[in-house]
């Protein structure tokens, strides 16, 4: 069985020292080992941005695609081979700006994949512009007088889109994050894990310390029930979307793959491509 070291490769990430993404990388590697995966059975599909580079820093199958499209690519991979563990990942711009349409529809579709968003509330790779996660009033190169748009809550969007697994964590908490990723991988259906992953270079507001101060763990709420969708929504709103931990999980719904008519347990990639003459003639006869 592979240890987390086997999910490491010899590539040095191009992230700034202190970047929150290092913790996410480590957490994925640990979680993969903890759930008993082998590198060849994991595919990490990532978007574009600093965080998108993560697929190249884990020893497994990785695809670094185009901006905002990690999720549809990941879903294609999952449909091709449902025996693989598929993780999609990217930043908040990738998932909640350019790729928001895919995020919402992936949640609805509920394929058995885990989506990890490295949410730093800013555009880092393009050197500091506003993001849909930036708070109103946030000053960036593209909002010199402060953002006049509202920030959106990934948790609340996911809950309203019918998510079956919604979690939030922070790069401060490697252990908690690893645990949530393990749970997400094991969850049947789509799991969204939004990770507060500070940009130490361009976001001087939402820092490690800022998050320490502001986040509220569900563990601190007495009697918190992650199976109650309405309360999950309510707690998230009460805490300005800064709730962390396993916020919501629905274990009753089947994954998309499980509901597809005629879809086998064995990966489709292993199927025989040839069609028998008998089957072929039957199809042709419909046009006679």
């Amino acid at each position, binding site marked *: 069985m592979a240890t987390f070291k*086997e999910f490491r*490769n*010899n*590539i040095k990430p191009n992230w700034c020292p202190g970047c929150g993404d290092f913790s996410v990388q480590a957490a994925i590697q640990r979680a993969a080992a903890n759930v008993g995966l*082998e*590198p*060849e*059975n994991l*595919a990490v*599909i990532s978007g574009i941005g600093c965080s998108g580079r993560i*697929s*190249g820093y884990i*020893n*497994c*199958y*990785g*695809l*670094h*695609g*185009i901006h905002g*499209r990690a999720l*549809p*690519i*990941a*879903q*294609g*991979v*999952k*449909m*091709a*081979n449902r*025996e*693989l563990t598929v993780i999609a990942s990217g930043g908040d711009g990738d998932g909640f700006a350019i790729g928001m*349409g*895919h995020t*919402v*529809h992936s949640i609805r*579709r509920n394929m058995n994949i885990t989506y990890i968003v490295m949410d730093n509330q800013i555009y880092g790779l393009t050197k500091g512009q506003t993001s849909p996660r930036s708070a109103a009033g946030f000053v960036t190169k593209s909002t010199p007088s402060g953002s006049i748009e509202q920030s959106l809550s990934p948790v609340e969007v996911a809950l309203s889109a019918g998510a079956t697994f919604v979690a939030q964590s922070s790069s401060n908490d490697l252990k908690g994050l690893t645990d949530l990723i393990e749970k997400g991988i094991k969850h049947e259906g789509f799991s969204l894990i939004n990770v507060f992953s500070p940009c130490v270079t361009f976001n001087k507001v939402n820092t490690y310390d800022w998050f320490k101060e502001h986040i509220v763990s569900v563990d601190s709420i007495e009697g918190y029930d992650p199976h109650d969708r309405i309360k999950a929504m309510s707690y998230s709103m009460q805490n300005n979307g800064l709730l962390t931990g396993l916020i919501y999980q629905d274990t009753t719904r089947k994954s998309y793959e499980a509901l*597809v*008519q*005629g*879809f*086998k347990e064995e*990966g*489709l*990639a*292993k*199927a025989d*491509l*040839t*069609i028998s*003459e008998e*089957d*072929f*003639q039957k*199809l*042709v006869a419909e*046009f*006679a």
Partner: protein
Amino acid sequence: MISQLSWKVGGQQGEGIESTGEIFSIAMNRMGYFLYGYRHFSSRIKGGHTNNKIRVSTKPLRAISDVLDILVAFDQETIDLNAHELRDGGVIIADAKFNPTLPEGLQPVRLLAVPLTEIAEELGTSLMKNMVSIGATSAILGIPVEGFRNIVEDMFLRKGEKVVEKNMEAITRGFAFVNEQTGGQLPEFQLEKADGTKRLFMIGNDAIALGAVAAGCRFMPAYPITPASEIMEYLIKKLPKFGGTVIQTEDEIAAITMAIGGNYGGVRTMTASAGPGLALMMEAIGLAGMTETPVVIVDTQRGGPSTGLPTKQEQSDINALIYGTHGEIPKVVMAPTTVEECFYDTIEAFNIAEEYQVPVIIATDLALSLGKATVEPFDYSKIQIRRGKLLAGQELPEMEQNDQFKRYEVTEDGVSPRTIPGQKYGLHHVTGVEHDQTGRPSESPTNRIAQMDKRLRKLDVLAKNFPNPVLVDGPAEESDVLLVTINSLGGTTEEAKGLLEQDGVKVSRAQVRLLHPFPVEQILPYVEKARKVVVVENNATGQITNLLKLNVGHADKIESVLKYDGNPFLPNEVYTEVKGLIKHGDVQRISQ
């Protein structure tokens, strides 16, 4: 006795025009006639004039005709809009219900007011007026009513014997009414007997979808659009039997990227759309080119730009398909010319996509995708699956942890070995960023050139191996004019060629089946031997003309005949236009 005739049924969209045409043509196809049907329809569900023009012949044909022999009209608008197409002595079968009248100044035609609705209502439902009109038609053609029984059974037997009999009665009553009016069958409409051979009758989209199943395509993410949706609708019905499925995605970007994911995951995956969808897919097509991921994309061209003429014929995506996506990638753009080719070319597209690890676009046009034609039965033995350098389901040599599979190894033919996720010693990284042989990002100038050249080199090999990139028909020696077309226009120029030859013009034709890489070597000798080259195309700017000039030169003798009003060319239009060009050009022999 006549060897071919043209029949058209028209009325309001939603009142069964399509099914009337369908029943009539399937029955004729089963009798062994060759059919070609083209539907005129609007982008709305109900209402608006629609018609279905069907040609029946004892010989293969694949173009709508210039003239009409019989028009079935369910409303006055159909007569007003279409009667001018009727030849002298043509017949209109009109529903007596709306007191049909002939427009003024019309050539001599015969108007038969038949109580289509009345008879149908007597039999229980006005819906059966379609059947009555089919009976009326068969009386004119002298086709026995019983010839329709098996198609009526196919369509209605699941609703019970009674429904079958009612519909047969509707046909019989229509037949009897017209028979009495005309005093028997009209000799000038008597069709030669067909050969009785069993053939298929299908639209281009059916053939593409069937070809995909035969090619081993097992997954299709797609977004609905006219005129491509039939492909996804067919596959969602058939793929589950083969373990696969269709996903209706949220948009075309999701469709193409999911298709790329599916292929990367090792499953033959396709998507299909039309111009607007292709525009959205362009960035991702670049990803497929850069990451050398096979993918098959169908573009059923329709009238552009923007929403344009969504239900009308056009061939105006060619520039976008060839030059679309930023940067430079190896990409293949195929253009089948018949329904048969749609089937075989789709299989080939999947093979090429995997053998060369490139995106392959199959470009059709609306008339090819939706035009319904008689096709010879497909040859099962010709179905081949070639996956190129894919190393799946086999042991790969052991690797150390930090070793990576050389997914982008620089090779002579430019194609590198490929593995798919799940294989133990096949780990590698894939990225749209410029990368080295193991898929790691690299900005090294030497590596950049090596990888760029490797990728683009694949097309040189492909250009040499592509089967029949140009179909040529005509004299090997010098010709007065070479007609160049793509897609559905092959059938039209085939007939125009016949008309020109009657005037003594030596005509050759070239149907280009591979738009990119352009088959220069194959077409150049014919361009050189022609005194004039006329490209016949359905767009306003001469995209194929320009492509031809760019690739083969000889700009001075290449001209265009363009049509972009939304309708396919008629053979006579091509004949007239080409004749005009020859007359004013360098061919002096023609005296008229």
